[in-house]
């Protein structure tokens, strides 16, 4: 009985860790896309300054 409970606890632990890992992975993707967004915005702003356009 105890060994069965142990496996169950390990199973739950693995499942929660997996889900948490997925959450961390998604958060990492969000960060990467936001960095990319900031970079593209920076490039756009630089281009606008070069061409003398006003950035709103």
């Amino acid at each position: 009985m105890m060994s069965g409970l142990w496996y169950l606890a390990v199973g739950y632990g693995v499942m929660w860790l997996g889900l948490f890992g997925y959450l961390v992975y998604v958060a990492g993707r969000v960060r990467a896309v936001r960095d990319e967004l900031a970079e593209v915005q920076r490039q756009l702003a630089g281009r606008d300054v070069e061409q003398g356009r006003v950035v709103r």
Partner: protein
Amino acid sequence: MAHTSLPVRATRLAIGPLRGWRELALYGGLLALMALDLYLIFVFAPTERVQGDVQRIFYFHVGSAWLAFVAFFVVALGSVGYLWRRTPRWDYLAVGSAEIGVIFTTLTLATGSIWGRVVWGVWWTLRTYLDNVATRRRMAAVLGIFGFVDVPIVWFSVQWWRSLHPQPTILQQGGGMPREMLVTLLVSVATFTLLYAVLLRQRFALERAADQAAALRDLLRAQAEIGG
């Protein structure tokens, strides 16, 4: 164990393993065809000018995709046949073809992803197929609505088709479970719901940021084209 004798008609109609020279010819022919296919793919077919050798995945990918479609068509055929005739062989056909369909669908997705990684630079993207954002969103919305139709069926299936699945216990009259179990269950459900909310918040942010980045990239590209 004694064998039961099947009716002549049933044995004649049953699809079983082939024996003797026919089996040999079938498997031999299949192996020969596979060898010929490999020769054609890797030796006979020319190398695609732009994509190079990775284009050769195409021959596996299309073959697998074709089989996936055929397999699930046969599943539908077998399912209709079973509901119509109620004879097990239609069920055998549907079940057998379903498993094969899953294998070839997996192969289709895997080969497509490998090709996409080399050619597109990503394992998978919907944008390449549906450049028109409005079309993609409309199709996804329709799919989302149709997909949800399955949810109440799954929910009520526990009551409609009584099987090994336990019957509903929480809303049972007189209480179906001890208070400690109910509290534990509710906390578990709440934890999962919170996890969903946190995940959805992140995925929502990801979609929004990716969409903004794509729009800005397009703008940058357009400006570069105008600027020469």
